[in-house]
């Protein structure tokens, strides 16, 4: 049985027909995953024993990895933080239920920056995932484990990931994988450990656009357990992949090329020209509030994070200490012990931005600027079907380069991904070429609920060669 270079589509057909034996396949997957873990560290928890699928659904026999901030019944879920060490959810997130009900099986929980606080998956309490293309470099963050494993696994697999400000697009770009962040509210957040409620979106990292379209069809749709879940009926996203892109209008936002590595700019323009060759037309467009998106994003994200993280107090789950002192002393001791440095920094920033006397100047101001950023996008989508830009301003940096960055320099790396995340529009990063042997991502953004259009354009690159 040859599993290497087998696409998800081909695999699902062959396992359904009985051509591939599920026991042989799971044994192969477990053995390979263990050796990948030793070499690249993509997992926080790799399951000891695979729970075999009970149902022969649309994903029968497919291994799934799940970012560690998505709850999985009976499997430790830490969101990459010491403060949740040992937490074993008594329930699974809705998206996990949907996937498992279609016959997929859970392989493990992937590494991430603590609570999603990072761009490089280096703020990890349980080890840093290494980029399979160059182990001295980052996999991107915060869904670094998901992108690492997707890039290196030689068998069919899909990763459930999550983005708040770019945590799917960035790691996909840095590892040469495909990453989709859906419209805010399209996929239920029930069972997701919140970072920032108005920004968090569960999405996917895979090897091909088809795998994204297939899996999205299963996890998208209304969920009564999530009050922000959109009332849209689930549908089959693979149907968009059959369409060509003739007549599609592509907007190229000029602000998204400022400060970008010149070699990356060249790769992106080549990709846009390729889309033109396939029948699309393109034109430059201006999104004038782009330069304010980073500040608006960080103020909103840390403000929401600081309230979300208030629940970690060592009482109901996660890290416990001996019950000593009054509640203030006990909670402060647990939190000071359990949170990592970046979590503490963001809690401090967010608490400050929401404090009486500063709330209007920072938090409310940022929410109003967010409105202007959304209006920029809405205006552009009256003219264009899809916007195309580089996903990241650099290729995956080396760990020794990351160490030298100050917090503000670190945050600035998100400059191209935060605006679409603030607007809650769907985006997909697809590999568009290489610079210095490292992959470059092309970022395709669409209007709210226009996942079909960005998948259609992304698919024209025919990324997975096998």
């Amino acid at each position, binding site marked *: 049985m040859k599993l290497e270079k087998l696409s998800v589509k081909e695999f699902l057909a062959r396992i359904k027909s009985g051509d591939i034996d599920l026991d042989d396949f799971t044994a192969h997957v477990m053995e390979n995953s263990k050796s990948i873990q030793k070499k690249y560290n993509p997992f926080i928890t790799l399951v000891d024993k695979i729970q075999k699928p009970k149902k022969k659904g649309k994903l029968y026999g497919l291994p799934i990895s799940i970012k560690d901030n998505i709850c999985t019944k009976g499997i430790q879920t830490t969101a990459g933080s010491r403060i949740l060490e*040992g*937490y*074993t959810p*008594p*329930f699974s997130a809705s998206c996990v239920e949907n996937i498992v009900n279609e016959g997929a099986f859970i392989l493990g929980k992937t590494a991430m920056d603590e609570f999603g606080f990072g761009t490089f998956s280096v703020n990890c309490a349980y080890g840093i995932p290494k980029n399979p293309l160059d182990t001295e470099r980052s996999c991107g963050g915060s869904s670094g484990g998901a992108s690492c494993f997707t890039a290196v696994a030689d068998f069919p697999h899909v990763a459930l990931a999550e983005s708040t400000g770019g945590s799917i697009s960035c790691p996909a770009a840095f590892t040469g994988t495909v990453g989709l962040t859906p419209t*805010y*509210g399209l996929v239920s957040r029930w069972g997701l450990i919140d970072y920032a409620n*108005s*920004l968090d979106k569960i999405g996917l990292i895979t090897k091909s656009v088809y795998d994204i379209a297939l899996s999205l069809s299963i996890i998208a749709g209304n969920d*009564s357990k999530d*009050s*922000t879940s959109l009332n849209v009926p689930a549908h089959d996203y693979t149907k968009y992949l059959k369409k060509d892109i003739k007549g599609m209008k592509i907007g190229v936002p000029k602000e998204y090329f400022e400060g970008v590595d010149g070699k990356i700019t060249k790769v992106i323009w080549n990709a846009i020209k390729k889309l033109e060759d396939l029948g699309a037309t393109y034109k430059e467009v201006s999104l004038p*509030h782009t330069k*304010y998106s980073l*500040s*608006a994003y*960080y*103020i909103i994200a840390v403000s929401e994070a600081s309230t979300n993280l*208030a629940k970690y107090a060592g*009482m*109901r789950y996660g890290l*416990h200490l001996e*019950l000593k*002192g*009054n*509640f203030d002393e*006990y*909670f*402060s*001791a647990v*939190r*000071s012990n359990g*949170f990592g*440095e970046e979590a*503490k*920094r963001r*809690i*401090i*920033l967010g*608490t*400050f931005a929401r*404090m009486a006397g500063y709330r209007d100047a920072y938090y*409310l*101001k*940022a*929410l*109003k*600027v*967010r*409105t*202007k950023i*959304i209006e920029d996008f809405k205006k552009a989508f009256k003219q264009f079907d899809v916007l195309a830009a580089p996903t990241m301003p650099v290729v995956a940096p080396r760990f020794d380069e990351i160490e030298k960055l100050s*917090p*503000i320099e670190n*945050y600035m790396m998100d400059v191209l991904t935060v605006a679409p995340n*603030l*607007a*809650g*529009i769907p985006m997909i990063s697809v590999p568009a070429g290489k610079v210095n042997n490292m992959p470059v991502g092309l970022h395709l953004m669409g209007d*709210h609920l226009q996942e079909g259009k960005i998948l259609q354009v992304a698919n024209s690159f025919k990324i997975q060669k096998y």
Partner: protein
Amino acid sequence: MERVSKNARLKLSEEETSKFTQQLKDVLGAFKSLDEVDTGNVKPSFHPQEISDVYREDKAEKFDWDPLSNTKHKEGKYFKGPRIV
């Protein structure tokens, strides 16, 4: 910083306090660029899209999991916490 960390229930070391104070100043300084944007008549966007309230019937439902399954601090059917005063 003392007031902020107290509000956030974080006990910072001296080293953390001085490091975070400087970093907070740098980050907030950079964020002040937002003042350049005229937001006079602009409404704040608490969500990316308009979200309407969703109601459900007010009726009790049973759930099949034990809320005490992840705590070490419990007594009978209750969570046990630190003293209040």
